[in-house]
Every structure is written in structure tokens, then in C-alpha cells.
């Protein structure tokens, strides 16, 4: 898999594009910004992020792993993707 910095950039970009309305808010968003508990992504709309990750990194994220906790920050998402990829 690509290095962490590259993945971080790709996922952050997707989250901004997909979920954030406001440009100021997009600028403030970092890899540690809480997405679900911070109210940026609701647990129901999270599914498009899951589908994006599965397509982009050619993985299957089991439902048991696709929890709001595991998706709460971009850094946590990267950990999850790496774990599933077995890296």
C-alpha cells in the first residue's frame, strides 16, 4: 500500500469533498478531527466513505469493523485500512 502520508492526503481530500459544506471548515479539518462524534459525518452517511475506501484500496471492510469509532478520524481510518490489508 502507498505510504501513510499519501493515504492520509487521499482520504482527507475525499472527506472534505464528500462531507464538508463550508470552505473554512474544510481548511480546519485535520487527520485527527473527530468526524462522527464531531458531527461532520453522521453514522448513516458514513457508508459512502466505506464504499470509497473499499474501491480505492481493493478491500472488503466487514460490517463489524465499520463502526463509528473506527471511522471517527482520518488517522483511525488509515489504521483500519492497513489492518484489513494485513500490513
Amino acid at each position, binding site marked *: 500500500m502507498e505510504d501513510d502520508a499519501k493515504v492520509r492526503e487521499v482520504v482527507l481530500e475525499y472527506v472534505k469533498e464528500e462531507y464538508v*459544506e463550508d470552505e473554512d471548515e474544510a481548511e480546519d479539518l485535520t487527520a485527527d478531527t473527530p468526524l462522527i462524534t464531531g*458531527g461532520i459525518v453522521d453514522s448513516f452517511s458514513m*457508508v459512502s466513505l466505506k*464504499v470509497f475506501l473499499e474501491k480505492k484500496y481493493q478491500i472488503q471492510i466487514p460490517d463489524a469493523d465499520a463502526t463509528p469509532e473506527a471511522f471517527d478520524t482520518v488517522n483511525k481510518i488509515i489504521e483500519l485500512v492497513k489492518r484489513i490489508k494485513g500490513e
Partner: protein
Amino acid sequence: MAYSDKVREHYKKTIAEIREGGLFKEERFIHSPQDAEIKVEFPEGAELTKVINMFSNNYLGLSSHPDVVKAAHDGLDARGYGMSSVRFICGTQDIHRELQNKISKFLGTEDTVLFPSCMDANAGVFEAVLGEEDIIISDRLVHASLIDGIRLCKAQYDSFKHMNMGHLEKKLQLHQDKRIRLVVTDGVFSMDGDLAPLDEMVALCEKYDAMILVDDSHASGFIGKTGRGVHEHFGVVGKIDIITTTLGKALGGASGGCVSGRAELVEMCKQRARPYLFSNTMPPVIVAAASKVIDIVSETTERRDKLEANTKYFREKMTEAGFDIRPGETPIVPVMLYNAKLAQDMATDLYAEGIYVIGFFFPVVPQGQARIRTQLSAAHEREHLDKTIAAFKKVGEKYGILGLKKKEIIEKFGL
């Protein structure tokens, strides 16, 4: 004993957490019929207070209208109290069929099926018409009952940013490989009172071969020139594949809902929608009264015109008074306060002034968007509105927010 102390403690703790989170919902006991003025016992055991109701979905003032009450009495006498059956066994009377036909004519659709509520209509419709090869693409702020219905169905799911047509188009492009695409939206979003741009949405659906479902619960009976709903407002009557709506708001306010739209989709609901198959039929008394309501709104626009005039007057006067009113044209008029405590305190003070309103804050609305949501009704007379505006001014002055814009209110009270 199965309900052990440990189990009881678990629930007590959860309830305490709900309270601490500021999410505890309390019932207010109303000792009068639903109307512009109501007698309220709040808190429980308190003396009755007569207040102006600025917080109901009784948009057309038909909930306690004498003609509707009489129709209910007549229906009770003619067709009895209950049917003790689901629709398809022995729960469908001639008056159910008659009401369905009247609703189809009113909404400009091919066919209609009644449900015990619109919550049930929304819970049942998706599973009835879609399978796992299909995709639902919904606005992110649709009503909770639509979300529940979507969760119950096997179709795939995606969403677009609230009323963002560019984002919707991208999603429609992305999902061209699916068998059926169904775009889902509220007609009027109940927190902000904003209207989904159905003309643009229908055009996108035609371009990308998608069906569209609109929940018009906060519109049926009064939005559009003759009150047909948001589809009439945007000139797309006959182009909405599924309309779900309620008889529990403007249209009499008792209960009941429906799925109305393409004949085959309505038939699929009769064959497969679980709340239709496994829940009791709408009681005859409500069917008879709702039928009268549809007659009234089909015959005259008098009530929706009065509601429109009330809405215009209230929006103008509240803006003049210096409140930050979310712009729009629906009778849902959010008075923006941004700070949760300010919204709660002002609602309490307004109640003391004889105005019944409630503050809304996170998570009911997004963080930092606390407000008092007011709702107009055709039951309101000018004096009700003037009294409400005067009370708002008095309370607004007390908190020093008149004339302040969003930024200034946030500076003063924080988020």
C-alpha cells in the same frame, strides 16, 4: 424476579444520562382541543395556563374544525369504531377506497394506499419496491422515518449534501451501474422550513434515469397555489414517482399516512409493505374525517391563503423587530439564536408571556444552530400574531439580541 435491581439501575442511569445531555423530552398536558389557543398544564400538576400555540403542525387549523368533527361523528355512526383487522383481510371499507381515490386526485397521482401513519408508509415503501441490485440516494437531512425505512430495505445506499444538486448529479453518475436508482428527499425540511428544488431534481432524475420519492408531510394541503404540495410549487405535478405524506399534520391532524404515486409502486406496497400487511387498518372515524378534510382543501384555497398571509405578516414583523429569521416562504419560521441555553431560556420566558414555543438545539439541529422554531397556522388571527410578536420583542430586548446578526449573537453568548 427478572426485573432485578441491577437491571433497574441500568435504566435509571441511562435516563439520568439523557437528562444530563439536555435531551430529556417532557410531555406537556393540554386540557383543550388543538387550536390557536390551548390550555396547558406544565410542569405536571401546575395550574392551567392559556397560551397561544406557535408550535403545532395544525397548519390549516382543521384539527378541531366543526365540519371535520361532525364528519368524524357521522363516520363513527355509519361505519363503527374499529375494524379489528389489517387491510387485506377484512379491514378495507368503501370509505378507505373513497379516501384513497380523493387523495390521488388531490395530489395528481395515479394511485394511493393508506397506512396507519406516514412513519409506517416510510418504513414500508422502500422494502416493498427495491431490492439489493438497486440504490437509494437521499438528501442527508431527510426525516428519521425515511432513514428507518431505508435501513429496513436491502437496497444499497448513498447520500448527497443537503439540497446540493451538483453533488446529487455526481452520485447519479456514480451509480449508473445499478438496476434502479431512487432519489429521496423531504418536500419541506421541518427544521429550517426550506423547500427541496423538485424541478431541478426531477430534471436530474430524467437525465440519469432515476425515480424520485418525496415526503411531503410538511407541505400537503398548503404549499403550492392550490395546496397540493411542493411538486405543485415547482410545477412538477405528475412527475413525482412516489409521494409519502401524512394526515396527521395539516390534513386533519389525527393520524394516518399514505404512499401515493405510480400505480405499480402502490400495488407493490399493498403486496409487500410490512406495516400495511401487519398493522391494523385506519379506523373508520379517522377515514371519514380525513375524507372531509380532502373535500375542504380540494374545494377552496381559503385556508392555505390565510396561512400564507399569516406567514408573510409574521416573517415581516419579526424581521422588522430585529430577529434573525431564517429566510423562506413556508409557515415554519425558525428564530435563530445559535446558543442552546439562550434558546431554552427564551422559550421559558415566552411561555411565561403566554406563548407556547420550544427551543431546539444539538443534536436535534446541527451544533451551533440552536433556535426557537415557530409554526404558523390558519387558525391564528392577527391578534394572536401581534401578541406573539410583542412577547418576542419583550423577551428579545431582555437578552439584548434585537438587531443582532449571527456573528454578534455568537460573540455575545458563545456557541
